[in-house]
């Protein structure tokens, strides 16, 4: 038995060479597009992960309004409810409680404004691997009267391991804050931004310094699966209520998410251009096909085939041809992208590129992101593209008169 679907399928293979050429062009478009997108996404994922996990965390809990105005007056008690969050919420890997504010740091005659980060040494290392950033000295412990300083601070103040650093600030509710701390270690961050002004104190020591016993200003959250971030954030927000704001990294570091969006948009533009070119190619094929088969269409209308049925056959032909090409493209992309996920593109040998990236603390190595959604997106794009292009023969058939069609 012959169905319209079968008829369409056979028609695709009438002109094998044309089918192969058209399918090949779609194949390369999908291959190129999936590859580009996978690399772009993979590179950004890596970059964001590098930046986000090196300090801020994928999300943070603050008292409402803290993100707008970072002040120690918005500190809040690190109570049992907060401490129990990992038990309460699925997908939450852990957290780092921090009390952060500004202070003046001085050593001998030098003074510099610094960002004081009071943190729990153990959970800090658990999330940000802070210990690994040590270039000199040793890591600190909870309760110990020591400070870890970044390279930038060490250079400006000309302090060394074992020296005593003086911190002066205004504490919680305006109390005077002053303290002397033993410089235990010097840290180096990949990102130059982080490398400039940070000093780390053990959490309880910082609380003591600022007169903010038991208080923290932010709780950085670590998650198990990045894809689940929105759900985790929502769950935490729901658990804590509206006294708190739970913000994703995009809100904590808008510049970073904007940079990613701009780059993605640029990439998107390239993809549009690619598909427009491919679209013209497919359209050319459709034009030729429609012209060559005009007589046949006339015969079919003459013997009583309804226009919509004929249109349906042609539409199926074009879309099936498109999906065939897209399918081949995906078949080719999967191993390609898989390969570049395991063997990332490595530009560390290329001097200019390597320097530029290392300035910002990134290895110029780009693993591809292997996401099925990317392949699926391109199959959908080809489907939509061919569905739209297939409207052209449908319009022709709608107005076609069998006698004219058969006269040629």
């Amino acid at each position, binding site marked *: 038995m*012959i169905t319209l679907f079968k008829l369409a399928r056979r028609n695709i293979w009438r002109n094998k060479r044309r089918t192969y050429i058209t399918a090949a062009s779609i194949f390369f478009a999908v291959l190129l597009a999936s590859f580009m997108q996978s690399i772009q996404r993979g590179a950004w994922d890596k970059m964001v992960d590098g930046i986000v996990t090196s300090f801020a965390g994928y999300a943070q809990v603050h008292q409402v309004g803290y993100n707008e105005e970072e002040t120690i007056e918005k500190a809040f008690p690190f109570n049992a409810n907060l401490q129990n969050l990992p038990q309460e919420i699925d997908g939450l890997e852990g957290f780092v409680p921090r009390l952060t504010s500004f202070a003046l740091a001085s050593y001998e005659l030098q003074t510099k404004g610094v960002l004081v980060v009071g943190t729990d040494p153990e959970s800090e290392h658990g999330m940000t691997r802070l210990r690994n950033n040590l270039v000199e000295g040793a890591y600190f412990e909870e309760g110990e009267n020591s400070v870890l300083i970044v390279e930038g601070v060490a250079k400006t103040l000309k302090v060394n391991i074992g020296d005593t650093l003086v911190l002066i600030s205004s504490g919680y509710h305006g109390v005077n804050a002053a303290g002397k701390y033993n410089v235990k270690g010097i840290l180096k961050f990949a990102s130059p931004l982080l490398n400039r002004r940070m000093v780390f104190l053990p959490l309880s020591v910082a609380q003591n310094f600022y007169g903010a016993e038991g208080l923290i200003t932010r709780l950085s959250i670590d998650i198990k699966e990045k894809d689940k971030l929105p759900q985790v954030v929502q769950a935490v927000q729901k658990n804590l209520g509206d006294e708190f704001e739970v913000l994703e990294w995009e809100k904590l570091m808008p510049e970073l998410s904007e940079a990613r969006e701009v780059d993605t948009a640029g990439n998107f533009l390239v993809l549009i251009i690619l598909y427009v070119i491919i679209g013209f190619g497919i359209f050319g094929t459709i034009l030729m096909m429609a012209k060559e088969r005009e007589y046949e269409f006339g015969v079919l209308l003459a013997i009583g085939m309804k226009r919509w049925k004929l249109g349906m056959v042609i539409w199926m032909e074009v879309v099936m041809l498109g999906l065939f090409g897209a399918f081949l493209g995906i078949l080719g992309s999967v191993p390609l992208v898989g390969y570049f996920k395991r063997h990332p593109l490595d530009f560390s040998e290329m001097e200019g590129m390597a320097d530029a990236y290392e300035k910002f603390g990134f290895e110029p190595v780009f693993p591809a992101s292997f996401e099925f959604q990317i392949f699926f997106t391109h199959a959908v794009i080809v489907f939509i593209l061919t569905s739209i292009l297939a409207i052209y023969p449908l319009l022709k058939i709608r107005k076609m008169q069998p006698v004219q069609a058969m006269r040629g």
Partner: protein
Amino acid sequence: MVIKTENISKTYNPDSIPVHALRGVNIEIEKGEFTAIVGPSGSGKTTLLNIIGGLDRPTDGYIEVGGSDISKLSDNELIDFRRNNIGFVFQAYNLIPVLTARENVEFVMLLQNQSEEVRNERTEELLKAVGLEKEIDRRPSKLSGGQQQRVAVARALASKPTFVLADEPTANLDSKSTTNLLDIMAELNRKEEITFVFSTHDQRVIDRARRVITLEDGVIASDIRR
């Protein structure tokens, strides 16, 4: 009466250089006739067949097929009308190239939503009647011109039409194939009372007709029954 035209005329390009292809044609064709439309090139044979077959509309006049007026039907109504009432055999390239002989014949019945049983039975019966039971699963490209025209005749009959219209069905055939096709058509006409109306230039084909209508300059010059 299966076909009746009253004073039909057809003018092409009425707005620029009008061509009066038909100028007042009156024809009545009865069931079971085997009629040839003849006449010099440009006399209006194709135009007349197209109008009778619902492929084209007359500029003027009235036309009735199987008792109903078809001159007022819309394009899409005409498609339905043709599917259920008329079998067409064109000069060449009648068949869908990607379908086998069997599938080509079956296709019309599929368009009519006939059951699979009916389709299979009738397809085989018809292809046997045109002497192609052996070639049933071949595609048109694997059939000779004469065989292709015989499949076209089988397809034309598949829908159980009121009549079969054939515009120069033998124009591309050699004399042996022509005779063979005519034998089959005449046989179907005699045994099953199928009404055939065909146009031709070929004297041997004209000789086989039982009625010959001659067109000249868009009017009927003679109408001879024998």
